[in-house]
């Protein structure tokens, strides 16, 4: 099994590499912009810009 898989960065259009075990719902950082991206599907791997943090978020 490959250790990494690639997906398109929805903000820059560039191909980015992610660990092969990414989960739907996981948040990853865009290597180019540092923006938070959400994994919305793994087969195929699709990323979207993650929602902004909201006021009542957190432990």
């Amino acid at each position, binding site marked *: 099994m490959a250790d990494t898989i690639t997906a398109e960065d929805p903000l820059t259009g560039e191909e980015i590499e992610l660990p092969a075990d990414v*989960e739907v719902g996981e948040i990853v950082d865009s290597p180019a912009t540092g923006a938070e991206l959400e994994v919305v599907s793994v087969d195929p791997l699709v990323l979207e810009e993650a929602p902004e943090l909201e006021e009542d978020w957190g432990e």
Partner: protein
Amino acid sequence: MNVGLLYSRIRRDEKLLLSELRERGHEVTKIDVRKEQFDISEPPAILDDVDVVLDRCLATSRSLYATQFLDAYGIPVVNSAETADVCADKAKNSLALAKAGVPTPNTEVAFTTDSAMESIEKFGYPCVLKPVVGSWGRLMAKIDSPSAAEAILEHKATLGHYQHKVFYVQEFVEKPGRDIRVLAVDGEPVAAMTRSSEHWLTNAAKGAEATEFELDDRAKELVKQASDAVGGGLLGVDLMETGEDYTVHEVNHTVEFKALNDAVDVDVPAAVVDWLEAKVESDSQLAEAAV
């Protein structure tokens, strides 16, 4: 067992739990809280086969409502709706700790800027003003002077959400540059760390340095009491050292543990899953005995 993981973001904390559960052969049902509808009578179909739900919602409002629905459906949830309700609100948290006789910083709640100013003047400077809902140290103010107090109160009154018009004023505790985070399951400590910073806020989310901490008997006793005070469960208990004793300033109900896991020798997700397995086993025995 089949563990439902209620989430809106999979952070490293959730990923550690998912890996541990799957490695042990448990089924995991991931439930994206943003995609579900919660009927007042019937649980959503995604919950059909779960034995227990772990609430890992980031948004407090979602956590509070979702756990209430799960309770109503009779589906075990960690943490319970009662625990979430007490822990999500700093005023309720402080009331529960004080009622249980757990040492906690002196706190007052006021509802207008004038009466909040009176509270602040009583506490003297510095003192602390916190939002009743929120975390990661956000929007907390250490108030050093009357002019700063007036400015902060005016900003909160003018710009704030209604919850920011509940003024939670607290004594400033002179801690030794660090506080203590204990992760506990039903009051039993799993691991503890200090969070050190030169800043008065020592949240891990604010970049405080985490170091493993050995709890003494008094700290263990307070962790148990604080856990019981909010209804138990999987909790993050925060303590400060006051010289001769400790003061418990907060109990967190959707506890993050990645910083703790990195700082200590204990395998935190493994300990959490151990506890979850034991809890599901004991709940099912109780259910069988009741039939």
